[in-house]
C-alpha cells in the first residue's frame, strides 16, 4: 500500500489520459492498468460549456483524478490553474507541471519551487514534476510537497531511465514518496524503477501510443508489481569480481 497525502493506493502504477485515440480506449487502458490515480491536463477540460467529454467519463469511472498544470509557463499560471482545478473538480490534489520550453518540455525548477511553496501554503496536496535533481527534491519536500515526481528521461520520449544515477540518490534521501514520471517507455523500465525503490511510476505515452494500449497497460501493471516485490525482497548487490556460492576458504573458520 502506498500513502500520499490523504489517500492510500493499492496500485503503484499511475496513468495519464492524453494521446489516446478515443475516450473508450483511454478508459479501457486505465482499467486494465489497475491504476487508481490518473492525471488530467486542465488545459484540455472545457469549463465554459460544462458536460466535458474528457472529464465526464473519467469521473464516472471512479478513478482518482490528479489534475495537472501542463501548459503553465510560470508559477503564477500554475497557481491559477491549481486553484481553478480545485474549484471545478473539488480536489486539492495537483500535479505541478511548469515547462516554458516547448521543445523538450523541461520542467522549470525555479518557477516550480515558487509555485510549490505557494500551493503548499494554501493547503494543496502538491506533486511536482521535476528534473531528477536531488537538491531540488529536498527543497520541495521542505516546503511541504506530498511527493516528488522526477523524470526518467524527457517527457513523451519512451527513452527509459536515463537519469538512473540521480533517481537512486533521490530515492535514498526522500522522506516523501518518489513517483518516477516521464520517459518510461517499456514495462522493463517501470520494473527497473520499482526495483530501485521508487514508490510508484507514472506512465502515459508508452501505453497510449502502443499498438494495443489495453494489453500494454496490463503489462505495465504486472511489471510494477514484480518490480516492487523485487525491491521488497531485496535485490542482490552487483559485483565486479565473481563471488563463489561455495567459498574456498570456509575451512579456515570451521575449527
Amino acid at each position, binding site marked *: 500500500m502506498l500513502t500520499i497525502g490523504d489517500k492510500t493506493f493499492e496500485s503503484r502504477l499511475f496513468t495519464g489520459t*492524453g*494521446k*489516446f*485515440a*478515443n*475516450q473508450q480506449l483511454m478508459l479501457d487502458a486505465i482499467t486494465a492498468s489497475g491504476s487508481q490515480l490518473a492525471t488530467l491536463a*486542465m*488545459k*484540455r*477540460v*472545457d*469549463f*465554459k460549456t460544462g458536460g466535458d467529454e474528457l472529464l465526464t467519463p473519467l469521473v464516472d469511472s471512479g478513478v482518482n483524478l490528479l489534475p495537472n498544470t501542463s*501548459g*503553465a*509557463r510560470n508559477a503564477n*499560471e500554475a497557481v*491559477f*490553474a491549481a486553484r*481553478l482545478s480545485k474549484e471545478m473538480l473539488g480536489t486539492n490534489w495537483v500535479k505541478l507541471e511548469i515547462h*516554458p*520550453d*516547448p*521543445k523538450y518540455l523541461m520542467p522549470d525548477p525555479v518557477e516550480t519551487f515558487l509555485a510549490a511553496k505557494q500551493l503548499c501554503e494554501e493547503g494543496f496536496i502538491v506533486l511536482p514534476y521535476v528534473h531528477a535533481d536531488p537538491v531540488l527534491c529536498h527543497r520541495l519536500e521542505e516546503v511541504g510537497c506530498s511527493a516528488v515526481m522526477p523524470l526518467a528521461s524527457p517527457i*513523451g*520520449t*519512451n527513452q527509459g531511465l536515463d537519469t538512473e544515477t540521480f533517481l537512486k540518490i533521490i530515492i535514498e534521501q526522500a522522506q516523501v514518496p518518489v513517483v518516477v514520471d516521464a520517459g518510461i517507455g517499456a514495462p522493463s523500465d517501470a520494473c527497473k524503477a520499482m526495483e530501485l525503490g521508487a514508490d510508484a511510476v507514472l506512465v502515459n*505515452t508508452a501505453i*497510449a*501510443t502502443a499498438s494495443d494500449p489495453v494489453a500494454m497497460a496490463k503489462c505495465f501493471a504486472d511489471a510494477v508489481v514484480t518490480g516492487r516485490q523485487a525491491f521488497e525482497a531485496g535485490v542482490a548487490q552487483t559485483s565486479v569480481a565473481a563471488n563463489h556460492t561455495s567459498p574456498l576458504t570456509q575451512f579456515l573458520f570451521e575449527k
Partner: protein
Amino acid sequence: MNFSDVFRSIEPDKLKLELYSKTERDVRKALVNPQGNIDALIALLSPAATPFIEQMAQLSASLTRQRFGANLALYLPLYVSNLCANECDYCGFTMSNKIKRKTLNQTELQQEIDIIKAKGFDHVLLVSGEHETKVGIDYFEAIFAQVKSAFSHVAIEVQPLKQDEYARLNDHGLDAVMIYQETYQQRTYARHHTRGKKQDFSYRLDTPDRIARAGVDKIGLGVLLGLDDWRLDALLMGHHLAYLEQKYWRTKYSISLPRLRPCTGGITPKSEISDLGLVQLICAFRLFNQQLEISLSTRETPELRDNLLGLGVTNLSAESSTEPGGYANPQSQLDQFEISDDRSTQEIVQVMKAKGFQPVWKDWEAAW
C-alpha cells in the same frame, strides 16, 4: 539582431544549387539524423528524396504519433474584414479587385461567434485583410475581448504589427500570431506585391522577431506554395524556423503549407506543387522538427486531407468560410479564395474517428 540580418548572409542561388545537387546517398544520411539538422532538411526537400517518400512518411507518422498521440486539433478561421491596402496578384482581397468590402461590427461579429461555437469549435483564427488605418490595432483591440470571452485559443492572421501593438493584444489574451512570408525569394516577392506596405519584404521578414519579443506564446510561419520554387521557399522557411527556435526558446511554432488556390482575379501558380510534393514537405518538416505544429486547411481536397491525417499534420480547419460574415451570410462573394473541402465539421470528425484519431476541440486554457 533580427532575422533579416541573418537572411542577408544566406545565398538563395547557392542554396538552390545545393538542393538540386543532393543525391540518394545524402538522403540516406539525412534520414539517420534529421532533427534540427539543416543539411538534412536540404536533402529531405530535394528531388533526390522522391524515391524515399514512403520511408519518410512512415517515420513522420511514427514521430507525430509519439509526440502528439492520436490527437488532431480543430480550429476555424473567423474573417473579420476583407479591406486591404495592398496590391497582391494572387489574393482575392487585393485592393484593385472590385468586390464588396466588409468589416464586421460587434453585432455581426457576435453572430459569427455564436455559429462557430454552435459547431463545437473552441480555437479560432481571426483573419483580416491588411488595412492599417481602417482595420488596425484599435479595431483589433476593440473586438478582442468579445472574441476571447467565447474561445479558449485565439490566433490572428492580420497585417504585420509593431512590437508594442502585439504586446497590447497579448495583454488581452492573444495566444498566437500567424505571419506568412508568402515567398522568401525577394525578386519574386517584389513581383507579386506591387503596392502598399506589404511591399516591405524585410519588415515582414522581421515580424516573428517582434511577435516573440512581445511575449506571444505561439508563432506560425508559412509560404504560399506556387509563387516560386517551393523547395527553396520551404528550405528558407526552415532556416527562419531554426533561427527563431534558437533565439526565442520559450515560443511555440507552427507552419502552414497553403497551395495557391483560384481566387477572384488571381494568377496561376508559377511552380505547381503536386500532392507528392506536399507530402514530401510535411514529412521533411516533421523529421526536421518533431514538436512543430503543422496545419492543414480546407484548401486541399477531402480525399487528400483524409490521407494526410496522421502523416504529420496536427491542426485542421473544417467547414471554413473565407469571407467576413460568411458563417451567418454565406455566398456573398466576399471570399479570399476558394475552398476545396466543403464537408460539414461532423462529417470530418467522423472520418477522423474512423481513422483512429481523437478530435480535440480544446487544448488551451485562456484564463492562464
